[in-house]
């Protein structure tokens, strides 16, 4: 039978995939997509918990409202992120992570 554990494991694996992608990939857009994946993995865990933790016989909707908020934030973040990437592309003509080393100490 499917237990909460299953959902959490899937969410964990998805999160790790996202993390691996962020670290491993050189193309900043792909990095961004993996970031979205990590966020949605978190949502999955939240929904899982809301379903298996019943309040008055119903799923715990505060968790789901939090998921709602994360989705909104993610959307805003993607918008701003991509704008930055565009500005970056204009100045550096490349989306490679290596080229972005302005902060070098």
């Amino acid at each position: 039978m499917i237990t909460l554990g299953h959902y959490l494991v899937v969410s964990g694996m998805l999160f790790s995939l996202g993390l691996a992608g962020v670290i491993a990939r050189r193309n900043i857009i792909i990095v961004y997509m993996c970031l979205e994946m990590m966020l949605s993995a978190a949502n999955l865990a939240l929904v899982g918990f809301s379903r298996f933790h019943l309040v008055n016989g119903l799923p715990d909707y505060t968790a789901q409202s939090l998921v709602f908020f994360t989705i909104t934030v993610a959307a805003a973040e993607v918008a701003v992120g991509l704008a930055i990437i565009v500005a970056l592309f204009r100045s550096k003509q490349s989306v490679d992570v290596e080229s972005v080393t302005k902060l070098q100490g």
Partner: protein
Amino acid sequence: MPPLLFYLFALITLGFGFLVVTGRNPVTCALALAASFVGLAALFLSLDAYFIGVIQILVYAGAVMVLFLFIIMLLDIKTEEGKKLNLPAIVSGVLLAVLLTLQIAAVVGSTELARKTSQDTPLALTEAATKIGKAAALPTITNDLKAGTLPDAKLIGFTLFDQYGFHLQVIGLLLLVGTIGVVVLSKRERSAP
């Protein structure tokens, strides 16, 4: 929700997720990501979170993916053919991912909370109608509950506007700032830099 379907959707989500990470061509990655989100939405549905599932498809798969594709097309990013693999980064990424998965699996395995299945947490819809406090006053919710169906969207809407009204306004503001930011950032410099 038969376990088979769960494994199918999980496989879809993780498979396409893996494709996103390893894809050479950004467009294929974007599409793989969309597919992964659809799989994810299906998982939401299996958890009786219909509204969230729909929102997931609507916002993520729809809006965000389109935005990514639009940027990829706009900036005409070619596939990274032949760039030498940044071996240390890949190795450390994979290493870290494996380590994290093992850790989560160990944590999950060690708590008995995670062993609860949907059967032993049935949704007692009819009795809920009387016990949900202020929401009981709203006939629309109580009628559905009594009819044995889960008014998912209505309940979320009630929770949001009942308890988290202020938070909604903050999110609204955040979205506003986000859009203004995008406009400022992507405005082409009139005077040459």
